[in-house]
């Protein structure tokens, strides 16, 4: 009875804390500007099903894709077991699903065990890719300190959880064989049966191990749940809404700024009355100038580095890394959110996403080639953030690189990016 009470308190605290922190991320995302992504719901559902649920963009890197699939399927399916554990915890039952499910239960537990083993192996492989093989994709200047530890913690926690799960089953399996107490014959244990011989054979030690692992496993899961809002691992939740709200237009199409259309039309036609738009700056200087979708992108990023590894600028040693653009955006909006909570809404920290986080050198290195957006397995769009920040630099500050200012004035004066007279535009027709 005390155990049930303790379980209830831990569970309630975990759910409460998780909702609170997730709510903060939601609030931070909504600090962004409006963007309408409510069109074409059918296509949006389809995109989400294909890209998030179906992992369609992972296949380009087959090794990572398979390992990730094991962990993903393992996570989703083993959650059925977590449901049973939660019911057992609340009502003091043991393996409550075993009776109603009958022989299916054995199949289910056996399946969980195999998945748990696959998850375990995948996590070990992933850890060694990061720390022993030191794959280039996981290095890079933005992958030091917290991002580096974060990735390792996630894998390490998953290994611990799976080990606890299998050890618990092994003890249970042995206790079942001993016909001890309430340990009724239930489930099949293709993996834990193999580790069972390593455990002691007296019943009281086995019960200790079984209970110990049970508590460790479920508290570990609840703790991990509460780790998510602080971690890149949050992608397991946001991948779904983020792909739902994907950009659906061709990748080459950049948005036309309505605020600019108003001004340009008024310039061309003085009788033009612009539609009301909210006042604001052109482009983005800080994270709050970006749209909520840009910010959702930032919180969805799991720092896998596929974008950076295909970026032509990054590949040739330039400072630009699309992954860093996303991480900086996330870190900045989180900072703004924290300031809001701690210092109130009038507080200014005199910092901005531009310059304090993202340098101009990074922004001007982009070729807008869309390799990053193509590579992202969850349809994040770093290019849109880069463009918005360029717009601020050019239209609000007039601080474009001098050679680009030359290009602008050529376009303005001669209708071509080079200094050629428009009268010569058809000279090509004459020579051969």
């Amino acid at each position, binding site marked *: 009875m005390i155990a049930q009470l303790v379980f209830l308190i831990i569970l309630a605290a975990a759910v409460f804390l998780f909702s609170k922190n997730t709510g903060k991320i939601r609030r931070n995302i909504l600090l962004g500007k409006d963007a309408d992504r409510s069109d074409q719901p059918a296509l949006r559902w389809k995109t989400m099903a294909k890209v998030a649920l179906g992992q369609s963009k992972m296949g380009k890197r087959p090794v990572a894709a398979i390992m990730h699939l094991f962990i993903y399927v393992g996570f989703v399916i083993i959650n059925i077991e977590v449901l049973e554990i939660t019911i057992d915890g609340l009502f003091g039952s043991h393996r409550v699903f075993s009776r109603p499910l009958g022989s299916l239960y054995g199949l289910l537990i056996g399946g969980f065990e195999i998945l748990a083993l696959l998850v375990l192996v995948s996590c070990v492989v992933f850890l060694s890719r990061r720390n022993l093989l030191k794959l280039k994709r996981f290095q890079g200047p933005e992958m030091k300190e917290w991002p580096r530890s974060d990735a390792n913690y996630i894998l390490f926690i998953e290994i611990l959880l799976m080990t606890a799960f299998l050890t618990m089953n092994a003890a249970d399996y042995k206790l079942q064989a001993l016909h001890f107490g309430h340990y009724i014959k239930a489930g099949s244990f293709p993996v834990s049966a193999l580790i069972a011989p390593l455990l002691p054979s007296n019943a009281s030690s086995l019960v200790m191990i079984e209970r110990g692992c049970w508590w460790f496993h479920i508290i570990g899961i609840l703790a991990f749940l509460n780790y998510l809002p602080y971690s890149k691992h949050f992608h397991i939740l946001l991948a779904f809404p983020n792909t739902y709200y994907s950009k659906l237009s*061709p*990748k*080459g*199409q*950049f948005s*036309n700024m309505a605020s*600019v*259309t108003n*001004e*340009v*039309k008024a*310039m*061309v036609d003085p009788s033009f009355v612009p539609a009301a738009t909210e006042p604001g700056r*052109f482009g983005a200087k800080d994270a709050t100038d970006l749209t909520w979708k840009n910010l959702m992108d930032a919180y969805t990023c799991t720092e896998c580095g596929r974008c950076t590894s*295909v970026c*032509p*600028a990054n*590949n*040739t*040693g*330039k*400072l*630009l890394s699309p992954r860093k653009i996303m991480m900086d955006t996330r870190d900045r909006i989180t900072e703004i959110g924290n300031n809001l909570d701690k210092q109130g809404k009038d507080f200014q920290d005199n910092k901005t996403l531009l310059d304090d986080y993202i340098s101009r*050198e990074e922004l*001007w*290195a*982009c*070729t*807008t*080639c*869309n*390799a990053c957006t*193509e590579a992202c397995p969850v349809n994040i769009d770093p290019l849109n953030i880069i*463009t918005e920040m*360029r*717009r*601020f630099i*050019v*239209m609000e500050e007039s601080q*474009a690189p001098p*050679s*680009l200012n030359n*290009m*602008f004035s050529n*376009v*303005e004066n001669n*209708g*071509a*990016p*080079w200094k050629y007279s*428009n*009268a*010569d*535009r*058809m*000279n*090509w*027709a004459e*020579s*051969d």
Partner: protein
Amino acid sequence: MNELHIPTMAQMAAEGKAPEILFWVGCAGSFDERAQKITRSICKILQHVGLSYAVLGTEESCTGDPAKRAGNEFLFQMQALTNIEVLNAYAVKKIVTGCPHCFNTLKNEYPQLGGNYEVIHHTELIQQLIDEGKLKTEDNESFKGKRITYHDACYLGRGNNVYEAPRNALQVLDAELVEMKRCRSNGLCCGAGGAQMFKEAEPGKKEINIERIEDAIEAKAQIVASACPFCMTMLRDGVKIKEKEQEIQVLDIAEITARANGL
């Protein structure tokens, strides 16, 4: 081949005629010496198949693409509105472009501003003409047994999912087609996009066009086929810097098609 006769929209309108398709030449195609050859190849093809077309000539102006990618939305929209006014005045319905950047801008970014046209890139037109049997590869000798690789232009491939048309245009040649290790949706940019063409690259270890031409060298290509005047410039510079001018030729799909048809 008969002498090139290049009608302008203004001339045709004066005669009370309207062409079936407008050929949007683009700034590179108009002014860049190397790209002018591509422009003429496209005209040769159009004339050869007897398609009724015209160009805007001095009435054409930059689409605003480089300004937009560089963040100058004002300039882009000024250009767009001016061009749309001209295009709508001629009641243009269909446009073929010689450049993926013009193609993308006209096709995707003009409609919202009041410019609605059917826009295709010249490689798509070439594929259509081949499919319709209007273009036959009569002179197949020029490319016989040559190793050709196609370099995907970002604003054609990833930008607009046009991967097959340029490849299909090469398929009809009696040549050996090879892919570079980074191709199609994984294709590596030439380094010119996003207004990089008009500025120095940021400091780094290497120029992007060198990285790209190394892919072509690795594929042992004798001809790098391009579909974009900016890629053309970058790739040719790459070949020059690598001193491979004897081994590797960079040609536009339009030039290859024109030559294969004896034009």
